[in-house]
């Protein structure tokens, strides 16, 4: 079996597994800005035009073009792309903060696009909430009132609201700051308020639009840890937008890469690194430390007749970095085994190729 076969195999397998329990399901989604935008997705000719041509011909920008995917319950789904690739537009379409131009969107099996204002409000009040790049906090309210805002518009009484707000403030580690105003807090703390506000109504899905881009690197790392911890503790489904690949790899179960509004590749981190769909993705993942992302199944080879097959055994999903010592110390190639079946072997050469790549700074 070749690596690409593995990739396909696994991809198909996962798609099937997810389809049953998908929380968000998107098909053929378009968002076009400009005059007579609705004509673009419907016209076979206009659909094919590139960004520049479309703008010149119609004055429209297609910020999201023909995007489709499923997000499984409890999954962290990351959308990634360069600036202007349509990530924010996509996530705003998902919550219908802006109206999609064409396509289908299901939320827990219900047609999102058919929801009227009232239903939509109910969804926003109870089912999902969002964290924003520039926080979007209300400067005239104290932290506790910012966090309780969603409950307030929902009509929850003051005592209950305060109690719940206090609870999530503790959860995001802001205890003691509830009486402060947003501008008295650091950027990182402000985003914790944004996070607490999103969590307060106990939604099923959390949307993040580049929540940490405005923070400096150290605080960003803290906040990423925070999200990982929260995900572990509260187990919410998350749709996370970022333009930072290392953030995507750190947080994402699966990653969708966009360019000019189009989907370029959708897969797990090791799939993107191990089998980039095109040069754009290859470029994207070039600087990633491959050893940290790739697993053994991406570097193993079929055994040759002269290979000794009595070396140590490892699973196919062991990360290369973790296997390095063991492979190099063993004097025989390591066998990659899953359910007692021999998938392939990994020798010093395979490991060293990855390590060398990393050290040459490529």
């Amino acid at each position, binding site marked *: 079996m070749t690596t690409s076969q593995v990739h396909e195999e696994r991809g198909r397998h996962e798609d099937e597994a997810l389809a049953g329990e998908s929380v968000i399901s998107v098909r053929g989604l378009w968002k076009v800005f400009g005059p007579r935008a609705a004509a673009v997705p419907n016209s076979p000719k206009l659909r094919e035009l590139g960004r520049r041509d479309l703008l010149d011909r119609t004055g429209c920008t297609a910020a999201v073009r023909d995007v489709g995917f499923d997000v499984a319950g409890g999954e962290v789904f990351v959308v990634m792309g360069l600036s202007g690739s349509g990530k924010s537009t996509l996530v*705003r379409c998902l*919550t219908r*903060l802006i109206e999609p131009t064409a396509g289908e969107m299901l939320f827990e099996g219900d047609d999102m696009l058919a929801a009227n204002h009232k239903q939509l*409000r*109910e*969804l*926003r*009040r*109870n089912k999902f*909430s*969002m964290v*924003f*790049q*520039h*926080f*979007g*906090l*209300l*400067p*005239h*309210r104290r932290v506790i009132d910012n966090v309780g*805002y*969603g409950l*307030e*518009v*929902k009509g929850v009484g003051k005592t209950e609201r305060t109690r719940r707000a206090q609870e999530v403030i503790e959860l995001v580690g802001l205890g003691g700051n509830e*009486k*402060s*105003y*947003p*501008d*008295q807090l650091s950027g990182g703390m402000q985003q914790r308020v*944004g996070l607490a*506000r999103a969590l307060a*109504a106990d939604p099923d899905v959390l*949307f993040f639009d580049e929540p940490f881009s405005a923070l400096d690197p150290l605080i960003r790392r803290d906040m990423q840890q925070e999200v990982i911890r929260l995900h572990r503790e509260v187990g919410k489904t998350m749709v996370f937008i970022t333009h930072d690949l290392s953030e995507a790899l750190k947080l994402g179960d699966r990653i969708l890469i966009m360019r000019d509004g189009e989907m370029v590749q959708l897969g797990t981190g090791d799939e993107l690194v191990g089998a980039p769909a095109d040069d754009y993705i290859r470029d994207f993942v070039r600087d990633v430390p491959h050893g940290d992302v790739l697993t053994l199944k991406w570097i193993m080879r079929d055994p040759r007749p002269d290979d000794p097959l009595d070396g140590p055994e490892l699973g196919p999903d062991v990360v290369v970095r973790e296997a390095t010592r063991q492979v190099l110390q063993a004097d025989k190639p390591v066998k990659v085994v899953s359910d007692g079946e021999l998938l392939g072997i990994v020798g010093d050469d395979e490991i060293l190729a990855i390590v060398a790549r990393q050290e040459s700074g490529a």
Partner: protein
Amino acid sequence: MSTAQLRDTITTRRPSKGALVAGILAVWLVAWLVLRGTHTLPLGAAQLTGLHEWLNDVNDSIGANRNSNPLFLYFFNIIRLIVDEFTTFIQTVLSEPAFDSPIPMLGWLGVVAVAGYVCYLVANIRVALLAMAGLVFLGLQGLWTESMDTLALTISAVLIALLFAIPLGVWAGLSDRFNRLITPVLDFMQTMPTFVYLAPLTLFFLIGPASATIATLIYAAPPVIRLTAHGIRSVPRDMVEASESLGSTRRQTLTKVLLPAAKRTIVLGINQTMMAALAMVTIAALIDAPGLGKTVIKALQTQDVGTAFNGGLAIVVLAIILDRVTTAASAKARPSHTAPSRGAAMLRLPMLIGGGVLAAIGVWLSRTYVWAAEFPADVEIGSTIVRATDTATEWVKDNFAALTTDLKDVVSATLIDPLQALLVQSPWWLVAAVIIAISVVIGSIRAAVVSAVCLALLVGTGLWQDAMTTLAQVLLATVIVMVLGIVLGVWMGRSPRVDRVVRPVLDAGQTMPPFVYLVPFLALFEATRFTAIIAAVVYASPVAIKIVTDGIRGVSATTVEAATASGSSTWQTITKVQLPMSRRALTLATNQGLIYVLSMVVVGGLVGAGALGYQVVAGFSQGQLYGKGLAAGIAIVLLGVMLDRMTQAAAKRADRPS
């Protein structure tokens, strides 16, 4: 023609613009020498044209049918009634005898106590003390009732204005379409010289408080509409989205996010509206609005400088109180603030209760005892102020008469007279041709068409000569404004230190009602055209200076550095880099300067400017001149529209990249 050639012709043609204008002026001078005195369309002081008589008739017939015509019966009269009732009610609270009692509902002590408490609530204790001291000072000046009348009219106009303006502003903030619709209307409301709509308003709402209040609210509403819309528009997109994403209804987003976040800007708008209202209320004395304005106008008309000064001082005191209170309120309304210290927080409640009790006691006293109801006359300092001013004026006149008379005479003889002679004695068609030609050269064909229409209508008003006299004064005042604007503007633009010193003076000048300027100049120069011009210059300069300053400051520091690095002297940097690059600011300053000068024409009419301003004033007071006054008002608007379009077209041209 290739674009390169095109650019060449444009650049070679550009410097000739000035030459063209000079050429036109030269031709005019020569033609004037030959043709002067012919076709000048004169009209005697008591003479009326058909239009004027027709307007008189309209006025009479409206007067006769006021209570039978359905439009009046069911529209204008009802508005008048409501506004009248409301204004009268506020007056009975503050200034006029209430119901059966000989005093208003609140005697002076009550007003002082309540004002102090309210100021404490919306602003802070310091401002509250200032307001109370200011009010007492007004009483000491012997102008309590007049001040309270002015205050009552201002408050009622502002309240009614806010009732409409804030919803309109919110709407304009939320809807691009409505914003596009209302912006030109607001522009028009603000550029129209204020006095001009006084006369037509009296046609519909009679002379009296209702017309005064309506005139005031028309003039005063635009700033708060604009600033409300601006405040709503500047709320960060993120905040609105966050609110929506949490499932807020539109109303919730408006009341919980947009309005609180825009509060500070809205209060700033209320501040500007308040100041504009105060200025207008004093001016509305021309149509019989009670209060300080009347005191000042009467004194100006009898050249009683001492009384005019006392009244003007009271207006200034009132302006300072209103300005400080609303400014402090807006500072307090900033979207967030550091939590108050524990001590202050603990003091807050007792202060609130204590203040409330004190205010209540003040009100009770003022309704029970005469000394607390009517401001005691025996502690008055007003007459001292009047006498001191008179003495000072006499002294200045005695000692500087030579100087001030010389200055006045020299300026009149060398600047005002020749310009006026040129405009007034030229045949009307010659002046029209010159103005149209200049519109084409500095502006556009479109501006020239507007000029032509305005000029034709001006001839139609029958007040051509008066219009030319006024135009001469307006042009001269504008030139002086621009000289001041450029000199001070460049200086302030280049030196932050100068800016820090001068800007507060300009701010103060802008918050002061225009009447007040007149007093000292009247004392120095008596009722002459010169006085009127100076008053207009003082009124219009701050705007022009500020715009030029901003323009100079807007020139990028790198460009200036590059000029300095290539060895330019300061003078060269200013004339070759900074001024040319702020061309747009200069034309804008000219435009605004003109508008401001024009809006002082009627005030000038009170102090010897004659011409259109005088006709408007006379129209208010003498029945048979009503139509002529109205026509004069229209003529002022026509001059305004013409000059505004011309300078705006010039500004647009300056905008075009070279």
